[in-house]
């Protein structure tokens, strides 16, 4: 079986700075993979490259067996390569329902607006925010907006989902709620890449970790192995972080 996503020698330079340097790895269908690394390690740039928001300086990207290097975000979204944003990006003057309906209509294959709204309502309810359908984004809490962002991603009927720090700024109980949802999405066969700083999240979700350091791939392997990797401990985790990761995922 071919990998769902395959990154080969992906490089992105901004002037003299190499933000992502010759990164290669592949993802199989149904995996939940953690993408970790310190601030500025190139995580978000890598997501931007993989989802078409940035074009690579070198390297190629294959998705579901096709070369998608150079494709635009909307083309990739329609193919099922979907992301959420670290800073949530709602359409401010659209209700929560229409925010999701936009994605259902343009990326999720809904035939018309009524069908899109119907799909959107289902997505909102699945994330437990069905009652917010008619609210405008400025009038809902950050935790709910993060869920709205997830609902938008779901409406695209993703095959692969990049979750860029969906838990940043949430409290512990809210995080547990989001984790349950991510697991239920993964249970349907959606491949998920979690970009995270929170060890609790990484430990709870991912069997496999990809570690970036100064733009380059530092480690890629089982969560326990990566946690023991001296290079990773030195560059990113520290001994305390490594200890937190030592517990096997449930």
């Amino acid at each position, binding site marked *: 079986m071919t990998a769902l996503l395959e990154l080969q020698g992906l490089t992105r330079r901004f002037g003299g700075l190499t933000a992502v340097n010759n990164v290669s790895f592949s993802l199989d269908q149904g995996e939940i993979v953690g993408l970790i690394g310190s601030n500025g390690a190139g995580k978000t740039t890598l997501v931007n490259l993989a989802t078409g928001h940035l074009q690579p300086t070198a390297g190629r990207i294959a998705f579901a067996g096709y070369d998608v290097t150079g494709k635009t*975000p909307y083309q990739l979204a329609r193919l099922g390569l979907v992301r959420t944003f670290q800073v949530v990006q709602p*359409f401010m003057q659209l209700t929560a329902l229409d925010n999701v309906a936009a994605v259902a209509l343009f990326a999720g294959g809904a035939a018309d607006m009524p069908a899109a709204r119907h799909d959107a309502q289902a997505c909102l309810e699945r994330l437990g925010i069905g009652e917010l359908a008619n609210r405008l984004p400025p009038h809902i809490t950050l935790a709910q907006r993060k869920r709205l962002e997830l609902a938008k991603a779901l409406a695209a009927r993703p095959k692969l989902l990049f979750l860029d720090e969906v838990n940043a700024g949430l409290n512990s109980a809210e995080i547990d709620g989001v984790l349950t949802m991510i697991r239920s999405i993964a249970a349907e066969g959606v491949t998920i890449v979690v970009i995270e700083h929170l060890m609790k999240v990484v430990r709870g979700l991912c069997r496999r970790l990809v570690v970036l350091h100064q733009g380059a791939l530092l480690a890629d392997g089982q969560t326990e192995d990566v946690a023991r990797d001296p290079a990773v401990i030195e560059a990113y985790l520290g001994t305390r972080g490594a200890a937190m990761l030592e517990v096997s995922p449930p």
Partner: protein
Amino acid sequence: MHARLQGWVLPVAILVIGAIVAYGLPIALSNQTYLLRLATSLALLVTLASAWNLVGGFTGYPSFATAAFFGLGAYASAVMQQFGWSALTGYATAAICAALLSAPFGFAILRLKGHYFAIASLMLVSILKEVTTGWSNVTGGGMGINLPGAGGDPLAIARISLEILVMLAAFSVALSLVISRGWLGFGLSCIRMNETAALSAGIDAPRLKTIAFTISSAICGVAGAAYAGWIGYIDPSDVYDVMWSVRPIIAALIGGVGTVFGPVVGSLIYLVFEELMWRNLLTFGTGALGVLIAILVLVMPGGVLPSLRKGKVS
């Protein structure tokens, strides 16, 4: 199916009202040349403001290219008629020329944002003006072009021009309404609110923006053709005057940017003020108008229509 039929009621009603006004108004105003001229100016401004609103309002890209396509349409039609073609062929040529130029031009400059887009769109006005002035064996250069039109009877020309421009205005508004309610308008509003998120939502932003820009420009082109037929004489400094870009923007700002009927209300208010100032404060008319517009925009930042419907998000 029922809901789909309902969606067409208002646009069709606008066209029907437009047709009635287009038929009735020239008869009602038959000999009142001043009112004929005023009504025709209003229809022209509504057309341009409503067309501008597709790009500047719905999509959020402040275009200053209106005058470029207006002038191009005026010249395309005038040149065709000079070569002996009918006025109708002139209109069609105006629309086609504007569309053919605006599609690639729009695609190229719509990747710029905000002020950069505005400046790039403004450049086209100067470029076309220079080209038209320079290409004198076809366009007459700075001498301009005379259009005979309707046997030369000024009153007949005034009536026909009013009919045409009222129909064009109604068409422009009805089309705005249809677009605002359909997938195109929905996609454009997403682009306006957050283009990055729109791309992630699977919205083909470059294509949608180009479609909106092309439709808008084609309407401006036909409006230019109608203007040429109405005035009977065009030269580059008149039809490529940057005020053709600015006035529709002011009208849309006054009425309500991004709303379907804002440009209509705004055009009416703008023209009424312009006439009042012009008549009563001849020496300082334009200045007073400017002050008035500034006050209006300050007091009602979203425009008159949204301010009246306060609390309701457009």
